[in-house]
């Protein structure tokens, strides 16, 4: 048993390295904190919201921020903080679920095309190229016009747009990794394709997928807000940040806080996600680990 007594040095994995780098990135960590804060609020809204969502106070009307209503009230005397909190539930939910849809389709599509290669890859990527050329935002508008707007439609439609880039990124990564010598080494060692995929490919393509997922969420939130701003997304009585901003725009001359606070909530969320995504990319970028 003597040989087990030697002092084995523990290595630092790339993941650990990346995590340490991310922790040193202040902007990314601030982004992460803001994001966690917003998610917590969104989850707890029904419990902690100061007023009810529908509660009107027509006599009060629109008032600027005060001790009673921290972010003011709208023309119908509804508490804006409460409305923004409920709006965050919609915006974040659309962001996460539609990204999940995009992730699922995109990763499967890209991984299959990249791994199989050859003619299958060519055909699958041609389809992606062709779909890329379609005016998707316009199609989504078309869909909402024809079938009326619903959450489910938004999830599917936005997910259907965003998966294309995901598929391209995953395929590119798979192709790069597949051409690496360590994958060839795994082939020559007699590993089955399944073992190669799970042990060698997936751990190495995970990084870019995580980064791109983080960066997809803000663009999905943006797309939803854009549609809601035009009045084609979330329909009343529900509201998202986009529809709150749209409402705020109409009365911004008299009641600017109705525009500024929902805009701030949206921008802060986009900020935090983008900074986190950038931070993750810097941390996971293999080129960064060389210096």
């Amino acid at each position, binding site marked *: 048993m003597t040989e087990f007594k030697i002092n084995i040095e523990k290595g630092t994995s790339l993941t650990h390295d990346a995590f340490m780098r991310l922790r040193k990135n202040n902007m990314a960590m601030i982004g992460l904190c803001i994001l966690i804060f917003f998610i917590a609020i969104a989850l707890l809204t029904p419990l902690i919201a100061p007023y009810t969502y529908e509660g009107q106070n027509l006599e009060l009307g629109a008032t600027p921020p005060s001790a009673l209503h921290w972010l003011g009230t709208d023309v119908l005397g509804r508490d804006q903080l409460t409305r923004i909190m409920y709006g965050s539930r919609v915006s974040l939910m659309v962001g996460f679920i539609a990204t999940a849809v995009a992730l699922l389709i995109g990763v499967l599509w890209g991984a299959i095309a990249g791994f199989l290669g050859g003619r299958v890859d060519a055909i699958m990527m041609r389809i992606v190229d*062709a779909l*890329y*050329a*379609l*005016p*998707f*935002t*316009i*199609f989504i*508008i*078309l*869909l*909402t*016009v*024809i*079938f009326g707007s619903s959450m489910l439609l938004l999830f599917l439609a936005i997910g259907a747009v965003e998966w294309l880039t995901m598929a391209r990124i995953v395929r590119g990564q798979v192709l790069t990794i597949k051409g690496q010598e360590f994958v060839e080494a795994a082939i020559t060692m007699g590993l089955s394709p399944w073992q190669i995929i799970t042990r060698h490919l997936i751990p190495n393509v995970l990084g870019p997928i995580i980064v791109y997922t983080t960066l997809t969420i*803000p663009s999905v939130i*943006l797309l939803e*807000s*854009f549609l809601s*701003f*035009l*009045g*084609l997304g979330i329909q009343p009585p529900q509201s998202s940040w*986009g529809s709150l*901003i*749209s409402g*705020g*725009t109409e009365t*911004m*001359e008299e009641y*600017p806080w109705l*525009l*500024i606070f929902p*805009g701030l909530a*949206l*921008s802060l969320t*986009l*900020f935090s996600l*983008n*900074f986190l995504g950038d931070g993750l990319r810097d941390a996971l970028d293999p080129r960064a680990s060389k210096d």
Partner: protein
Amino acid sequence: MFLFILKRILQSAPVLLLVTAVTFFMIHAAPGGPFSQERAVPPEVIKRLNERYHLDEPIWQQFVGYLGHLLHGDFGPSFKYPTHTVNDLIAAGFPATFELALYATLFALVIGLTAGIIASLKPNSLQDYVPMSAAMLGICLPSFVLGPILLLVFGIWLQWLPVAGWGQIAGDKILPSITLGAAYAAYIARISRGSMLEILSQDYIRTARAKGLSNARIIFVHALRGAITPVISFLGPAIAGLLAGSFVVETIFQIPGLGRFYVQAAFNRDYTMIMGCTIFFAFLIVVFNLLADVLLVLLNPKVRQEVSGGH
């Protein structure tokens, strides 16, 4: 080169056909659409529609008929305004939209490239952080937040610039162009910074420096040609986003452009207008993607040689 362009045009045709088919059949499926008989539409409209779309024929014959008109550049009459054709509306709205998109693109290119190049020259210094923070701001302030804020500050509070309109009062084109272009300026700044950094670390830049060239010559003659490539491949597909952005900007600034017409048509359920505009937008997107592709080939001598068959 000619063959390459021809090939790309031929490749684009199925995409346009697909867009047309999807749009056509989706509208057909719409409850209360122009092709369903349930709606109480004035008899003269029904008559015109019937004349035009042969509603009594099977659906695929209607589609072929529509395609035939399309090939002649005819989008048919408006469903909502029987006195107008879709062509009239597009012709009325497109110039403003085109001009807006053009100014926004120019704004984005000038600001974005300048910021990106400046940032790339001294990475991780103040000269890098300031423009890149501004770029992050541009990405996180969507046009429908930035637009109203600009309008509020410069139009209403400071009263420096007009708040609405297009080409009526001097300076009324400034705010909409900036609103639409800001996000693209931000993206271009980030992309060009990245590609400049990559190119500046190439061996041939070291060669240029070893030759004793001035920094300006190294940047503009040697580095920029390679660094501009990713910006152009971004700009091609970006036209789709730019058009969508124009919906918002034209709504905010009340510009009588195609984007605003389109949003109005969506609310009014002016199906033929929606259909026509969608196809028209798709056509524009395809054309600009094609232009970007051709430009990319022209810029790279190696690809250019491969495309033209090579010797």
